[in-house]
């Protein structure tokens, strides 16, 4: 059966794409962010995943508000990035893993998660940039991918408990896949930030640090908060932490922290990175 080697949660701010394109990794503004990644890349080189299941939210590239699935799973042979309208470079396509996609789809629906399946799917910066950060300077991303898209755009959003349980079902699906593949689960977005309204620029360092800590040791802690609570505590876009929680759910019981980094600000966002290994 396939094995989950661990999970990585990471921020996905679009301007990271511009920083990579302009080679600004060691620029004073970006250095504290980019310097978080080498230890995680070293860990990836050690655990050698074949496939990445990427839990993220689309920002109006693949999904418009005409059809907005709460949970969607990609089942395409390949995933294209495309123009998102804010001028960051478009990245080369990503290879899918249709066998794992369809196995996950069957297993998730069996477990009563009635997801939307996507045989064609554009992937935006929330999918592409974390892969760029984790495997930089590659012509082609070295792992096969399965995108899992969570609605964090149009309320009502799935509850924290629902996301955690969705993650658990994803973990169960991966571990019941008849394959010798090694799988890493990647969750993207967050941490606290708010782009819109008079409260734009809101950041909550205390909550973020607590969340990162609890995600390792006691992930159910965050399920005590409703989605509006999470908006209040982390900002209108800080709720992307639901993708982190989904990823943690997929890892199951006990994990150890491989590496963490937290830096304020990248653009308007508190940036976070957290790599966890399954015990």
């Amino acid at each position, binding site marked *: 059966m396939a094995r989950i080697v661990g999970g990585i949660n990471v921020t996905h701010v679009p301007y990271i794409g511009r920083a990579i394109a302009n080679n600004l990794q060691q620029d004073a503004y970006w250095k504290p962010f980019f310097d978080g990644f080498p230890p995680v890349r070293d860990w990836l080189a050690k655990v050698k995943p074949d496939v990445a299941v990427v839990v993220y939210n689309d*920002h109006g590239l693949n999904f*418009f508000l005409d059809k907005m699935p709460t949970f969607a799973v990609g089942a395409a042979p390949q995933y294209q990035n495309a123009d998102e309208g*804010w001028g960051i470079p478009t990245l080369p396509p990503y290879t899918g893993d249709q066998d794992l996609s369809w196995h996950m789809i069957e297993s998730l629906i069996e477990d009563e998660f009635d997801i939307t399946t996507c045989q064609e799917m554009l992937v935006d910066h929330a999918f592409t940039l974390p892969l760029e950060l984790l495997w930089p300077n590659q012509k082609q991303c070295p792992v096969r991918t399965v995108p899992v898209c969570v609605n964090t755009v149009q309320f009502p959003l799935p509850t924290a408990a629902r996301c955690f349980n969705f993650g658990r079902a994803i973990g169960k699906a991966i571990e019941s896949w008849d394959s010798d593949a090694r799988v890493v689960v990647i969750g993207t977005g967050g941490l606290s930030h708010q782009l*819109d309204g008079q409260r*734009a620029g809101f950041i909550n360092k205390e909550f973020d640090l607590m969340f990162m800590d609890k995600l390792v040791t006691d992930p159910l802690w965050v399920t005590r908060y409703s989605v509006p609570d999470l908006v209040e505590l982390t900002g*209108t876009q800080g709720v992307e932490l639901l993708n982190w929680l989904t990823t943690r759910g997929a890892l199951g019981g006990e994990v150890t922290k491989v590496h963490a980094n937290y830096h304020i600000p990248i653009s308007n966002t*508190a940036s976070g990175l957290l790599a966890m290994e399954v015990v």
Partner: protein
Amino acid sequence: MTTGKQKRVIPGTTIFDGDQARKGYALNKMCYSFNSEENRQAFLADRDGYCAKFGLNEQQKKAVFDLNVLDMIAAGGNAYFLAKLGGIYKLDMQDIGAQQTGMTKEAFQAKLIAAGKN
């Protein structure tokens, strides 16, 4: 026109719920079209005609012409879609943040940096 449910009030914050999604549909749909360079150029060439094509109401059109983000949110705009309109005018997130909070861009950036020092 609204669900009538009592809503959670978070100061300075508009939750993009069903009421906002209904109200802002035309505006957000127009912004979604800005994923294409051809459409961005078509908008710049004839803003009035482009807004009319998507059926924006007067409130939405005025907010777009004024490039006023808070007014666009009041008219149902969603942050992710509005950012595509902002991209046409080369506005970054600190420009947009500064405008909404009534600060200079420098003051807004300083506020973000200060949030890391607490």
